[in-house]
């Protein structure tokens, strides 16, 4: 057996879901988040290879969200998992078309986006899997199944009824109900120090929280910090 065959076994298969808040308040930072997303795969490959970690497969998925209680039609917009670099053009097109608008009140449907991410079609076959959810939002989130949201005809089916249910899906050590694989999962939050993000940071394992001030958030975020934070979590 050659050395290359050994190494071929033990490269990292990385799936990343980018949950992006595209409500009105994100206007000042959405361009930066989009720029992060568009250069993400190249920067990640670079940082990972600098750490001696090779990526065998990289797939990205985007979930753009607003607020089901405000406007049902555009509350969630998402891609499939797109394999890079083959599907990079599809990814670019989707991200470039994102624009900030709507949202209504301050909290948004970030938890629904997170629930969809947790239940995404993650890679289950390759070795050294890493399943990373990255949340970009400047707002707190409505509780899951908030009355004004569940009446929306686009409200996602089958997601947990509350944050405890979502934690069960996220899982913990030796959890029997988890949807996510304990060894693979990571949650990176670029979000305010407010409900539910602060509770999640405190109670869920394998999370990293870049807290910001609600309503002003993400302004001081820099691309290299985002990439480094994610790469170091792998």
């Amino acid at each position, binding site marked *: *057996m*050659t*050395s290359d*065959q*050994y*190494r071929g*076994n*033990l*490269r990292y298969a990385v799936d990343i879901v980018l949950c992006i808040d595209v409500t009105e308040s994100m206007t000042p930072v959405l361009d930066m988040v989009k720029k992060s997303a568009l250069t993400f795969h190249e920067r990640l490959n670079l940082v990972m290879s*600098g*750490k*001696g*970690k*090779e990526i065998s497969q990289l797939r990205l998925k985007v979930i753009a969200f607003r607020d089901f209680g405000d406007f049902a039609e555009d509350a969630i917009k998402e891609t499939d998992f797109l394999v890079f670099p083959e599907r990079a053009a599809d990814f670019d097109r989707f991200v470039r078309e994102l624009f900030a608008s709507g949202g209504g009140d301050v909290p948004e449907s970030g938890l629904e986006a997170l629930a969809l991410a947790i239940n995404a079609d993650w890679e289950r*076959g390759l*070795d*050294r*899997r890493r399943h990373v959810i990255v949340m970009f939002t400047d707002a707190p989130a409505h509780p899951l199944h908030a009355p004004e949201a569940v009446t929306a005809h686009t409200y996602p089916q089958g997601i947990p009824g509350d944050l405890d249910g979502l934690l069960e899906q996220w899982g913990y*050590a*030796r959890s029997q109900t988890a949807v996510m*694989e*304990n*060894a*693979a999962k990571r949650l990176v939050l670029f979000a305010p120090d407010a409900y539910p993000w602060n509770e999640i*940071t405190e109670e869920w*394992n*394998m*999370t*990293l*929280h*870049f*807290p910001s001030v609600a309503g002003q958030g993400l302004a001081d975020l820099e691309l290299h*910090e985002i990439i*480094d*934070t994610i790469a*170091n*979590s*792998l």
Partner: protein
Amino acid sequence: MTAVLIEGLLGAPGEGTVWRYDGDDLLALGVWTERSRGGGEDAEPLFAHRVSTAEGILGVFDGLGGSGSTAACELSDGTTRSGAWVGARLARLGVASWFRGGHAPESLRTRLVEVLRAVPPPRPSKIVSSMRRWLPTTMATVRYRLTGGQAECRVLWAGDSRAYALSPGWGLQALTRDHTDETDGLEQLICDPPMTNVICADQEFTIDTQVLLLPLPSVLLCATDGFHGYVATPAHFECHLLRAMQESCDTREWAERLVRHVLGYTGDDASLSLVALGYPGFDRLRADFAQRAEQVEARYGGCDRPAEEEAARRWRTRTWNEYRPDYERLMPPPVEPL
């Protein structure tokens, strides 16, 4: 021991340093490699032997670059070093001084806490996470005492660095169990799971331990995951060790070959400390392991790994199931969840 700088084989990134010692009934070697020059987060491997009391220690320390990426110090040339880099070296220092002082095994944790807490804490980070730690490092050490034809061994470890015994009859036998929720050695290799316990300055940690009596002659070694975590199956680490031994004329060449081997397959910094106790010389050691080397090479070292993914998976599981009983015979049992 004198250090010798070794470069990897053509195409293999990184370079390594080796140490070796040939004494009376005692052969020792150390191997240390880094993926990028100056950035290696493994500390140099530890080996010390006190002739007057016939006792010694070997150990390895792997600073955790992901959770310990915060800059911890700036060197005189302006380069910064991460908390992982500093943590591994401080832990090595702590273990060495603990051994020199002849202290009880139970006091090692206290000594490590003292050494790590001497470093001022970092500036508050923008990132909040229990995944991040200050000065995090793994450790695997074996403190031994030679007495009545036996080696009385106290194994101490935290994280996923490992200690092993290597014998002609049983092959490579793990003396430690990784601190991860995943307890299956092959799954650990495939998943690279997060560690549940590592040495660090800002969170609680434990030093796991077990005591063993091994007959002389015996070979003991400690290795970081750069050595054992990038092979096809756990059996292949033994293949590398014995292949390099059998191809060598002396301890130094064995160490140099290990550098070249590991740079060829690893994706990480790698360090290893090894001592052969009760062997009068390298020739005898090599001769004693010749048959075992042939056996593991024939069983696991060949190029029979199927190319197709599913078949390769089955091959890997079959190989592991065959190898596992002997590999785990000295391993402490898994800790049952409360």
